[in-house]
């Protein structure tokens, strides 16, 4: 997590090093083939998935699982749509059995319009799940106090939103995200939700974030596979810039061409 570390350094989540700074959702694609192409072209290392009700005889879950297994990536199940601690904990337990992983992207939604996390329920659920052996990836806000509580509850990665889920508004609180990075210099930080364009992902990297988690920005693009690759390249560019130690901005102009030796002087 060194600022000046090698460019090849990749994020480590709970002792597992991943091969990419891109975590990609699996929902809303035009087809399974396009989903697979998006993963292939972007090199995304983690796929987020969920659990939903299935009818008897439907067998859709098995077919989906077979497709995800073929991607050859790490799987991060979520508790999307859960509005209470109880729902989130039970959903996480069901997901662990289905996907055979202790990883859980913990969502406890607190507001129907913004889908912003319920910080109080999130901390409680994170504590319960950590005690139950889960490795929790909390979908949170950039609130420092909330994030401290999540770390106290056992979280070893934080996933603050850039903007509300599905909005594509980018990084809404640059100051807050920069503060969070400064406050937790050694903890993996992932921008989860709200990104719409690769430039926003590059900005997240320039702030020193370790990864981004996307779904709608890729799946709802006109060409999802091309957009996925665009994000992957932006992440690489942004990370290189971060590690290259950017210049400090200044208010007044400073000539880049040498002044000494100019003609007519």
């Amino acid at each position, binding site marked *: 997590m060194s600022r000046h570390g090698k460019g090849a350094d990749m994020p480590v989540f709970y002792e597992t090093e991943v091969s990419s700074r891109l975590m990609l*959702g*699996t*929902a*809303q*694609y035009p087809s399974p083939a396009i989903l697979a192409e998006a993963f292939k072209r972007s090199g995304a290392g983690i796929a*987020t*998935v*969920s*659990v*939903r*009700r*299935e*009818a*008897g*005889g*439907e*067998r*859709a*879950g*098995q077919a*989906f*699982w077979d497709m*995800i297994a073929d991607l050859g990536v790490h799987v991060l*199940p*979520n508790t*999307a749509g859960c509005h209470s601690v*109880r*729902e989130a904990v*039970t*959903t996480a*337990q*069901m*997901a662990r*059995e*289905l*996907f055979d992983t202790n990883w859980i992207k913990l969502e406890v939604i607190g507001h129907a319009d913004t889908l912003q996390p319920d910080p109080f329920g999130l901390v409680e659920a994170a504590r319960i799940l950590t005690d139950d052996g889960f490795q929790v990836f909390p979908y949170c806000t950039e609130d420092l106090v909330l994030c401290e509580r999540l770390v106290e509850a056992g979280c070893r990665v934080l996933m603050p939103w850039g903007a509300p*889920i599905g909005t594509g508004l980018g990084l809404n609180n640059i100051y807050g995200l920069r503060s969070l990075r400064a406050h937790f210099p050694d903890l993996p930080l992932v921008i989860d939700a709200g990104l719409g364009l690769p430039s926003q992902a590059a900005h997240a990297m320039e702030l020193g974030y370790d990864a981004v*988690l996307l*779904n*709608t920005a890729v799946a709802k693009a006109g060409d999802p596979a091309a957009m996925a690759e665009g994000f992957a390249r932006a992440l690489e560019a942004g990370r290189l810039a971060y590690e290259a130690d950017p210049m400090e901005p200044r208010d007044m102009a400073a000539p880049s061409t040498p002044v000494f030796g100019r003609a007519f002087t």
Partner: protein
Amino acid sequence: MKITVNGTPRDSTAATLDALLVELGYGGAKVATAVNESFVPAAIRPEQRLNEGDRIEIVAPRQGG
């Protein structure tokens, strides 16, 4: 016995959760279960007795963000 499965009320004579899954056509399916909002691991389903009014959830892997 009246129970609720995935939000839909229904009648069943199944004595256990395992038997209910077979009755409803889930035999061998990749599903996870909960009864009254509590997770029931697959290994426990044969011992999980069902009672009048139980609310059962049966879920499977799906797309997610």
